[in-house]
Structure formats: structure tokens, C-alpha cells
């Protein structure tokens, strides 16, 4: 242990940084002197001595940081209240934003849910998919209207009103398998970069077994979401500024209040 002593002492000296700055400046040299006295008294220190010293350092530095924080809060309670209020309002605002975003996203699934249900029932009753699905042309990149596609059991498109680059978009095999085994699914599909679609897909059984997929561009919903995020962010920013300014003013007013005997 004797050989390690200078190294361990040097490390201990550096570890004083764990203490609050004021305590370190006020007592740093005394702490080190007391440490040296204790070490010299125990003939350069045993392993137990070093362990004890480091344990004390960790424990007392945590305690002192807590004391310092408490002192700071007691001195400037307004900032503490403002911080607490800010946290609560941020949580509430965040929850409200998230709820609104979810509502927007859920609304984006209409009328696809009804469409998928209607065409799936019709095809299941024996109507051929190309007869059931009306003729139409919705460009997924440009148009905002809802569209419908029928895929056979192998996932091959047989009838559609939705196109991307003049061809019917192909569902990933994993999605086909999932809908086949689960019966239906609601998800966001990105058949091409920056083309996001809110999709409701339903499995069809019977003579024309396959999958009916009804989709609609998410462009409008994304625009609304962006507006919502912007409102939430700027609202939060204004709240933070107001809280800081309010706390600073109240803190100043409190300090200037005369002491009555």
C-alpha cells in the first residue's frame, strides 16, 4: 500500500472537486492537511484506511451537495417554485400535445376504415374485386383523396384506384403475412420516401380471398401536426420566459421588502 500512497493521495486531492465549490475553497486545504495527519498517524495508511477515507469522501460530498442545493433553494425559493410549476406545466402541455396528435392521427384513418370494411364485405359476398372497386385514379404522390386496392392471397394487386408512378403499389410480404394471420391492421405506410399513407387493411375470405387495403395521404395530417408542434413549442418557450421573469421579479421584490422589528 506504501507504494500506492502518493497516487491514492493525488487522486483523493483531485476528487475534492466532488465537493461544492464554496466548501472546497473554504476547507480544501484543511481537509488535505487533516488527511495527511491521519495518514502519517497510521504509518502511511493501510488498505482499510484508504477505503475509509474514500468512502467518507463519496458520502460527505453527496451530503454537502444536497446541503448546498437545499441552501440555494431556501435562498431563492421563487426559482424553485417556478421550476416545479414549469415541470408540471411542461408535463401537462406535453400530454395535451400528444393526445391532440393521437386524435389527429386517428382521424386520418377515416374514411378508410369504412371503405375497407365495405369492399371486404362486398368481395367476400362473391362480387369480383374489379367489379366491386370502381374505376378511378388517385396519384399517391399528388392527390389527397382516399383510394382502395385489392391484393390476392399471394399479395399480387388485382384491382386498384391508387397508383404511384402509374403502377399499383406493392405491399411488403411481411405486412401481407401479418394481415393474413391477424385479419386486419391499421398502420402508416411509406411506399416511397416522403409519401406517407394512413392505411386500413382487411383480410377477405371466400372465393376471392385476399386483402382489401384502403389508404389516404397523410400530408394534411402532417401539416396539422407540424402546426400543433409549433404551437406547443412556442407556447412552452413563452411559458418558460414568463416563469423565469416572474420568479426573478418576485425574488427581487422579496429581497427588497423591509425587515419589520
Amino acid at each position, binding site marked *: 500500500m506504501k507504494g500506492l500512497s502518493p497516487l491514492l493521495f493525488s487522486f483523493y486531492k483531485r476528487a475534492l472537486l466532488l*465537493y461544492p465549490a464554496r*466548501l472546497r475553497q*473554504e*476547507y480544501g*486545504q*484543511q*481537509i*488535505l*492537511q*487533516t*488527511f495527511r*495527519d*491521519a495518514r502519517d*498517524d497510521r504509518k502511511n495508511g493501510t488498505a482499510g484506511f484508504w477505503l*475509509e*477515507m474514500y*468512502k*467518507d*469522501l463519496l*458520502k*460527505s*460530498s453527496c*451530503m*454537502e451537495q444536497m*446541503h448546498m442545493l437545499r441552501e440555494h433553494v431556501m435562498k431563492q425559493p421563487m426559482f424553485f417554485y417556478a421550476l416545479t410549476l414549469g415541470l408540471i406545466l411542461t408535463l401537462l402541455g406535453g400530454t395535451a400535445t400528444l393526445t391532440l396528435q393521437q386524435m389527429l392521427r386517428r382521424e386520418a384513418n377515416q374514411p378508410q376504415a369504412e371503405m375497407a370494411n365495405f369492399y371486404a364485405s362486398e368481395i367476400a359476398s362473391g362480387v369480383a374485386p374489379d367489379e366491386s372497386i370502381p374505376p378511378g385514379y388517385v396519384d399517391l404522390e399528388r392527390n389527397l383523396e382516399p383510394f382502395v386496392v385489392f391484393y390476392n392471397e399471394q399479395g399480387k394487386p388485382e384491382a386498384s384506384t391508387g397508383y404511384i408512378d402509374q403502377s399499383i403499389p406493392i405491399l411488403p410480404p411481411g405486412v401481407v403475412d401479418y394481415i393474413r394471420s391477424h385479419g386486419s391492421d391499421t398502420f402508416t405506410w411509406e411506399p416511397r420516401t416522403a409519401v406517407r399513407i394512413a392505411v386500413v387493411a382487411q383480410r377477405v375470405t371466400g372465393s376471392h380471398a385476399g386483402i382489401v387495403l384502403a389508404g389516404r395521404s397523410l400530408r394534411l395530417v402532417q401539416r396539422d401536426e407540424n402546426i400543433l408542434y409549433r404551437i406547443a413549442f412556442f407556447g412552452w418557450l413563452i411559458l418558460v420566459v414568463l416563469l423565469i421573469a416572474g420568479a426573478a421579479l418576485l425574488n427581487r421584490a422579496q429581497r427588497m421588502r*423591509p*425587515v*419589520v*422589528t
Partner: protein
Amino acid sequence: MTKAQKQPDVRGSLPLTAAVFSILLALAGSEKHGYAIMKEVSLPEGGGVAMGPGTLYGSLDRMLGSGLVEETGTTDDERRRYYRVTGFGRKVLAAEVARLRAALATARHKGVLEGAHS
């Protein structure tokens, strides 16, 4: 209007923590520097509190702030300062000892100490 002079409250300072009680007890006899305090408080008769330099100076800082102890101004080294108990600190220590004595009497009365020295 003048600022009211705050009188230290002896009863309000009780009960003392083991560290504060032991430090006050160590300083009650004579002024001491950090290591001497640390050494004395670790003895069974000094309270038997094992404390390192960090705990010691953290406690001393708060005790200086509440007027229980003060620096004597004498140093035999720039880094080795001496501390002594103040008049208020002595009153607080006496009150704490009285409180402990009452608790000890109760413990004795209830037979808690029977066999404790075996």
C-alpha cells in the same frame, strides 16, 4: 426600522446529530484542529463516531454558521486551523447532555441497561 437581532435558540438546536454532539464534546475541553477532533470523536469516550475529513469539515462549516463553534485565529500551519466551542455551543451541548441524561434515566428505570455491561 432596524433589523431584529436573532437570538440563537438552544432548544431549537436539539437534538444534535451524533457528529455535531461528538465535535462539541471534543472541543468542550480545549481548542483543537481538524485531525485532533477527528481522533477524539472516534474514541468510545468521545462518542465513537468514525468520520473522515469531508464529514468533519462539512459539519464544522454548519456549526460555524449556527454559532456553535468558532475559529480561534491561532494556526500552527496555514492549513491547520483551530476551533473552539462558543458560549452558545456550550449551552447547546449542556442541554443535549441533559436530554440524554433524562433518556438514560428512563432507560435505566425500564431495565434496558441490565446486562449491557456484561
